[in-house]
């Protein structure tokens, strides 16, 4: 119990430290002490001290912080969703996009972009997240109805349904890209994921979706543990496993859809983080899932800070996480293969 609290508080401390440091980094360097002063002044509603550059408070509260908070929420949300999918599908290689949610969101976003290119004048900053979110949810509905022939919602049925739907949607995205012709770069940039220019409205949007989802997931964390024993045994221990499975699949997908809607497709956070943490803190979801949130937030914020403040040019965050995540995936895959051979 004390060990669990130690790990969680360490991660929390690390995240708080990283948020502070990341806020100071950027084109204009702001010392950590001043970041804290500005934050404190903002929280208490007092004017910032006179020795602070007058541009700094605006940079901190209106430009950097929304993006930083968005990165922590998206990273944390994706990591928890990944952990939930792995636990539900009894497959350590599942991720938040296993049910085709990313393809659904990508299709929705591409549709919004192509509609605007064809002169249907809607503000992209609103239509893209909205269409992406709707696309992700529509995909979930289709996958569920495909899988519902199997009344137990078994993991293989769900994964297969997800693969089929994602394949169809990818073809649809390809077609939209072809139609977009020379404007295709807007779609491609969205697909690679980015946190550039996130506003407080978008942060609020993600927060209102992720917070209730996280609460539901943490509520069922112990049931998730029992469900690792398989459905029959879980039922015999008093867990309504089919109901819990449907509920948590929906909630985890909802959370993923919320994250994807504002950030685009960010891969591998949802795969690596639960995996790494299972090695560090064990398989107990009551500790694993909160730890996933903190570690996912730390990882995405670190990656976003690297691309925003340290690299000479911003590269899309989805590309950066996949570049780190891809080799890791290979490593896990290889290790599993070797493990099976023994």
């Amino acid at each position: 119990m004390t060990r669990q609290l130690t790990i969680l508080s360490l991660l929390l401390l690390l995240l708080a430290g990283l948020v502070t440091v990341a806020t100071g980094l950027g084109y204009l360097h702001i010392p950590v002490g001043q970041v804290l002063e500005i934050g404190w002044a903002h929280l208490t509603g007092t004017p910032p001290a006179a020795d602070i550059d007058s541009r700094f408070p605006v940079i901190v509260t209106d430009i950097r912080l929304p993006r930083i908070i968005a990165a922590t929420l998206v990273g944390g949300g994706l990591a928890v969703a990944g952990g939930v999918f792995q636990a539900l599908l009894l497959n350590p290689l599942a991720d938040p996009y296993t049910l085709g949610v990313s393809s659904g969101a990508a299709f929705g976003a591409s549709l919004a972009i192509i509609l605007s290119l064809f002169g249907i004048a809607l503000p992209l900053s609103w239509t893209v997240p909205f269409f992406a979110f709707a696309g992700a949810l529509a995909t979930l509905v289709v996958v569920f109805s495909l899988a519902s022939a199997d009344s137990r919602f078994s993991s293989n049925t769900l994964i297969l349904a997800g693969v089929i739907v994602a394949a169809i949607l990818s073809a649809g995205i390809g077609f939209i890209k072809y139609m977009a012709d020379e404007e295709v770069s807007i779609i491609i940039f969205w697909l690679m994921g980015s946190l550039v220019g996130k506003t407080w409205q978008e942060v609020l949007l993600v927060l209102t979706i992720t917070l209730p989802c996280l609460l539901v997931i943490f509520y069922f964390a112990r049931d998730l543990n029992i469900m690792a024993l398989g459905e029959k045994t879980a039922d015999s221990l008093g867990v309504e496993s089919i109901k819990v499975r449907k509920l948590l699949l929906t909630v985890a997908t909802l959370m993923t859809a919320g994250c994807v809607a504002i950030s685009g497709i960010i891969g591998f956070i949802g795969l690596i983080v639960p995996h790494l943490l299972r090695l560090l803190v064990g398989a107990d979801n009551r500790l694993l899932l909160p730890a996933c949130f903190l570690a996912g937030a730390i990882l995405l914020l670190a990656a976003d800070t690297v691309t925003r403040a340290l690299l000479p040019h911003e590269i899309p965050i989805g590309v950066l996480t996949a570049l780190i995540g891809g080799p890791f995936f290979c490593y896990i895959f290889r290790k599993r293969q070797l493990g099976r051979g023994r």
Partner: protein
Amino acid sequence: MMTGTAPLFVLDRCSFGYTATPVLVDISMDLDSGRFYGLLGPNGSGKTTLLDLLTGAAHPLAGRLTFHGREVGTYGKAALARLLAVVPQDLHISFDFTVYDVVMMGRHPFIPRFSPPSTADIDLVQAALAEMDISALQHRSVMHLSGGERQRVLVARALAQNTPVLLLDEPTASLDIRHTLDIMKILRRKVTETGITVIATIHDLDLASVFCDELIVLHAGSLYCHGPVAAVMTAPLIREVFAAEAVVFNDELLGKPRVQYRYA
């Protein structure tokens, strides 16, 4: 706990099947509390399916099955889990839970959400670990156990659940002789001393004869016969149901029929 004359389980013409293939046909019998039942039958005779009906994992397509006078399907899962523990044939687990974690999962129906286990829960878990001779393994991951060790973890988990009824699907299938006898002795002792009911599928006819009170024999999805060990276990039954030749003799020391196969 219910004692006296009311039967624990009543099966009335229960049938079950998967898409047009009947697995169990017209099973009718009463099962009483405080007895050790051996569920016998060749491969594919419907033993596991019958256990599924008793545990509520499957519901009869026709007929009625009651537990304490109520249809099994009308119990909530949590209520049933406090009355009835189940040991499956095998455990497939893809995550690194420790042996202790898995055995503690047996206490899940009794521990309120967000509460840590009480000292009583911990004592039950430690007792179950000791009875199954796996106390030394308790901090090991269940993913790295041998088949026999995993099976003992499953039985320990059910013992920790500490229910008046215990249903086991081939609890000794992958165990060496020492641990096989240990499990059978512990189950026998619990039935005799604490009055719980045990229903276990068993392949070893000799083992079933020595440890059980009554035997239920399934053959091709039908109830072949059901009754006290001495009445059921005979050489003609072994020939007809299991297609094997054997000598059945009375072990005067144990007062039980014993089975010796003829290999010629």
